[in-house]
């Protein structure tokens, strides 16, 4: 069966207006606690709307749409999300598809085949399309597919993995648990049940459109003891067109009443169920005393007549549980005509495959899913190969054996073409068809057919014994004679006390199992020490998570209560979320980087190199990973006001002192013990001034990261050696130092004033004059130096425009903590231009008056 053929079958599951646009076989549905295999995924389109369906097939490949049942429906709406992961060990072969729709989230594992591309493309086309339209689609057409009961529950439970800590963890789906319990209890059935014999009467009669004008006692009430169960089937109750077209007939009540009238009166019977399709009717009665033990009564009808659907032929069935035994009764009227035995075999198969009894919390049951099956009806098999005269002669002598050898049903049954696994008792009665109505004479019409045993009773089930199998020729109103059989059947009865005991045991076992199925992992380190961490030096550590449980585990680092992120800003965790298969491991990298935004917080003591990460296992426990280290404080990330107070290199300053200075930086005033500008800035500027003014590409060519770090250490330790590194590295260190100060040179609150004044030099000057003292010093000092550098533009290639853009961004740094309106690119360009314009004034104008005004 190729892909297209399967697709045709899948398409049949849906209406013709609902088109299957893509589908995949061999998908698995993954959940931390269970896996469902061999699912089909289909994308179905109805008008503009699309949805993803996950289907279960009772056989593979599915032969007919009835083999398929829909398990999951995910409408592709605005909330629909799709993420695709590879299996790291085998990226070519396996793909994980995470689909989320509204409140449902599912993870599918699919085999990498060329079809996957089509499927995924189609999926994304659907997502794209739905995001283009402004109105939310309604998915009215999906209502009929809404999955209830078990699936609904599972969906609810897999859904919405908690992102915070306080939620309930995902519990093992109860439905799964219940089915497990059921299975376990089934395995142990013999330990808590005993059996009792019940007698079952099965009768069948093709009444050929007649009303019950004669007593039925000779058919229904001839046994010594009243049976425990009556199953009575009729065919051709009513041959009128109205019945066929509208499925209504007054004969239903007539015959039902007749049956009730003529069943054995020594016992009181209660109707279990009655079901009719056109002319086929099945009635099941049970002794009143057994009725309390009857449960889960369901019936179904299947038409196999005209076009394979109509109810002139087919089968009607009733199933129920009696004590702990499941019973199914089928009454069928199979295709007519002597030669059509193949058609009759087909009808049998269709009834078997299409009869479905819906169950609460379970897959629907089929006929075959029962402990005992009783199948009766006008099966319509004939005698071929023997001429009618011989047949009549032999049967008139009660010599049935030679005739039965040519019975189509015996032959087909023997070859297992029909009723495979079923039994039929010895036939010791005359053929039941065809008679002249009202007589015991063979049909005298011109057709001149051989008589046949059309009306038969089969059974299936280990504990069923047939006691009698007979026809009732005295009931002669029809062209068929009624047939009946009596069975002695073992019914399993529950010993309440033992049941309870075993039930408790099973529950206990499952409790244990459930606790064992909670995801289990081993993490090699839960405390990660980064040792000494320095400014701008990336440090990496890794931890390994091993899945030691039996099922795939999905982990995620989750947020703690009231925190915006799952880790501090200086920490990067990769990957922060992933699924690990059983026995596999996953390495997680933890990277620490103290940059300009985090350095000032470290210096000020408002943050520490310490964090506890919560590693959450879906459906299971949380593991705390502690991350710590010691931050080597640096002049990078200090405030200007703090730096001017430091007479010694920063590494010689006690941590407490630094924190104190940072906290008081607003009150800092100049005195004998302060520098007018930070010595670190002076060192760097002076070095460039002395050695690098003529360096080509000054401030444009980047330095070497390693040299920048050396310069950092040189500044922080107050080395007496010459400054290490090239001029470019020194220039970059200077820029970094200016960028990493806790506050920018021009405070955040003055930024907008500066931008407004940017075209007016006088106003700009005014703003600078009013800056806090040390900021003003740094600003003017740097401008003076840059003017000097611009004198050498012939050698160093500097131009005032480039320089003002560079320093504009540094002096007028944007506040990273301010949540800004998303700026348009043009707007940002305008702002950048104004910043440049602001500092440009100070690069081209002589502002010595400002310096001397001090």
């Amino acid at each position, binding site marked *: 069966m190729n892909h297209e053929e399967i697709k045709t079958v899948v398409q049949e599951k849906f209406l013709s207006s609902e088109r299957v646009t893509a589908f995949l076989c061999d998908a698995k549905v993954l959940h931390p606690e269970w896996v469902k295999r061999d699912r089909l995924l289909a994308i179905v389109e109805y008008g503009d709307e699309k949805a993803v369906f996950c289907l279960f097939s009772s056989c593979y490949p599915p032969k007919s749409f009835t083999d398929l049942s829909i398990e999951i429906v995910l409408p592709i709406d605005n909330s629909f999300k799709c993420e695709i992961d590879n299996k790291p060990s085998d990226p070519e072969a396996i793909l994980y598809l995470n689909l989320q729709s509204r*409140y449902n989230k599912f993870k599918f594992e699919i085999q990498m085949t060329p079809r996957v591309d089509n499927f995924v493309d189609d999926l994304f086309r659907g997502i794209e399309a739905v995001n283009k339209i402004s109105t939310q689609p309604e998915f009215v057409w999906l209502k009929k597919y809404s999955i*209830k*009961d*078990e699936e*609904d*529950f599972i969906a*609810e*439970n897999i*859904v*919405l993995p*908690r*992102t*915070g*800590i*306080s*939620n*309930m*963890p995902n*519990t093992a*789906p*109860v*439905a799964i*648990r*219940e089915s497990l*319990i059921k299975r376990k209890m089934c395995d142990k059935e013999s330990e808590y049940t005993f059996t009792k014999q019940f007698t079952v009467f099965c009768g069948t009669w093709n009444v050929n459109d007649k009303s019950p004008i004669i007593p039925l006692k000779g058919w229904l009430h001839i046994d010594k003891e009243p049976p425990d169960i009556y199953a009575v089937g009729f065919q051709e109750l009513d041959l009128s067109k109205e019945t066929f077209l509208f499925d209504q007939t007054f004969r239903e009540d007539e015959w039902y009443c007749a049956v009730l009238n003529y069943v054995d009166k020594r016992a009181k019977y209660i109707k279990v169920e009655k079901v009719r399709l056109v002319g086929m009717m099945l009635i099941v009665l049970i002794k009143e005393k057994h009725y309390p033990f009857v449960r889960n009564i369901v019936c179904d009808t299947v038409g196999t007549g005209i076009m394979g659907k109509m109810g002139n032929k087919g089968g009607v069935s009733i199933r129920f549980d009696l004590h*702990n035994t499941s019973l199914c009764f089928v009454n069928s009227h199979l295709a007519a005509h002597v030669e059509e035995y193949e058609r009759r075999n087909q009808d049998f198969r269709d009834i078997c495959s299409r009869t479905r009894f819906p169950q*609460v*919390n379970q897959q629907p049951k089929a006929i075959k899913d029962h402990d005992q099956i009783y199948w009766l009806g006008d099966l319509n098999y004939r005698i071929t190969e023997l001429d009618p005269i011989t047949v009549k002669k032999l049967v008139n002598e009660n010599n049935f054996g030679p005739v039965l050898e040519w019975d189509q049903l015996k032959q087909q049954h023997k070859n297992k073409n029909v009723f495979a696994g079923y039994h039929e008792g010895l036939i010791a009665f005359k053929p039941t068809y065809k008679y002249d109505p009202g007589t015991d004479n063979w049909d005298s019409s011109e057709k001149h057919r051989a008589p046949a045993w059309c009306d038969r009773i089969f059974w299936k089930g280990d504990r069923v014994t047939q006691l009698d199998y007979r026809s009732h020729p005295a009931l002669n109103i029809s062209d068929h004679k009624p047939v009946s059989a009596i069975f002695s059947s073992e019914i399993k009865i*529950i010993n*309440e006390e033992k*049941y*309870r005991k075993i*039930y408790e045991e099973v*529950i206990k076992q499952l*409790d*244990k199992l*459930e*606790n064992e199925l*909670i995801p289990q992992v081993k993490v090699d380190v*839960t405390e990660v020490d980064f040792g000494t961490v320095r400014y701008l030096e990336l440090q990496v550590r890794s931890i390994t998570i091993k899945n030691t449980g039996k099922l795939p585990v999905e982990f995620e680092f989750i*947020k*703690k*209560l*009231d925190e915006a992120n799952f880790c501090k800003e200086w920490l990067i965790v990769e990957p922060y979320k992933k699924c690990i298969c059983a026995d596999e491991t996953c390495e997680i990298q933890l990277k620490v980087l103290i940059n300009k935004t985090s350095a000032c917080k470290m210096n000020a003591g408002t943050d520490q190199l310490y964090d*506890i990460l*919560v*590693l959450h296992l879906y459906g*299971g*426990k*949380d*593991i*705390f990973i*502690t991350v710590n280290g010691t931050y080597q404080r640096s002049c990078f990330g200090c405030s200007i006001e703090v730096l001017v107070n430091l007479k010694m290199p920063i590494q010689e300053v006690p941590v407490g002192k630094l924190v104190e200075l940072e906290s008081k930086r607003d009150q800092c005033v100049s005195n004998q013990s302060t520098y007018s500008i930070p010595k670190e800035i002076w060192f760097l500027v002076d070095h460039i001034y002395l050695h690098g003014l003529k360096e080509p590409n000054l401030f444009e060519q980047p330095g070497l990261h390693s040299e920048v770090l050396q310069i950092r250490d040189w500044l922080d330790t107050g080395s007496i050696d010459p400054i290490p590194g090239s001029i470019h590295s020194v220039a970059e260190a200077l820029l970094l130092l200016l960028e990493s100060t806790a506050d920018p040179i021009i405070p955040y609150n003055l930024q907008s004033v500066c931008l407004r004044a940017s075209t007016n030099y006088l106003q700009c000057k005014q703003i600078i004059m009013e800056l806090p003292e040390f900021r003003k010093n740094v600003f003017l000092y740097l401008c003076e130096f840059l003017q000097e550098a611009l004198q050498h533009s012939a050698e160093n290639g500097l131009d005032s425009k480039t320089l003002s853009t560079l320093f504009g961004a540094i002096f007028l740094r944007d506040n990273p903590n301010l949540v800004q309106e998303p700026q348009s690119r043009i707007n940002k360009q305008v702002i950048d231009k104004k910043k440049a314009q602001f500092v440009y004034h100070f690069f081209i104008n002589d502002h010595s008056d400002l310096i001397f005004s001090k």
Partner: protein
Amino acid sequence: MTSGPYNYSYIFKYIIIGDMGVGKSCLLHQFTEKKFMADCPHTIGVEFGTRIIEVAGQKIKLQIWDTAGQERFRAVTRSYYRGAAGALMVYDITRRSTYNHLSSWLTDTRNLTNPSTVIFLIGNKSDLDGQRDVTYEEAKQFADENGLMFVEASAKTGQNVEEAFLETAKKIYQSIQDGRLDLNAAESGVQHKPASPGRPLAAPPASRDNCAC
């Protein structure tokens, strides 16, 4: 058949809290597995166990969160109190310091759970009576003053372990019956499942949406 299909009507969330080494994980293990875990490692994080019990003919699923006791995790474990219907507060009868810290654990519990949360005080390691550092009477008085239920138990012998978990459940169930515990409240720590067939578990959808984020 009287037993009917397997069903439970409620889910109760419990947390177990207390100083490091008082035997929280062992109590959980004893309750879920009926076994004593001899070399139980320190819990680094939050472990999780479940068991189904019966109270007044109702099947109740207990979802038990066993938290790390180390002081340094205190800030993180506080996140787990929310939505607990029962809190088992454990100290070690042989170590007075673990008893002395109870008031701080109690403060956290009162602050972070709702008023109807049932708090049960357990003095663990009652099998080590010879090394006793806290008398029964003293702890009983503390419990009475603070309106806590109290037993001394042993995760090792299993003595009173079952009782502590079950009594807590009974008290919670009683609160539901009395209407003191509002099942619809987001933080009640109880999920109710109507007994109607067809829906194996109907946790109120609201309780899934009230995540912290």
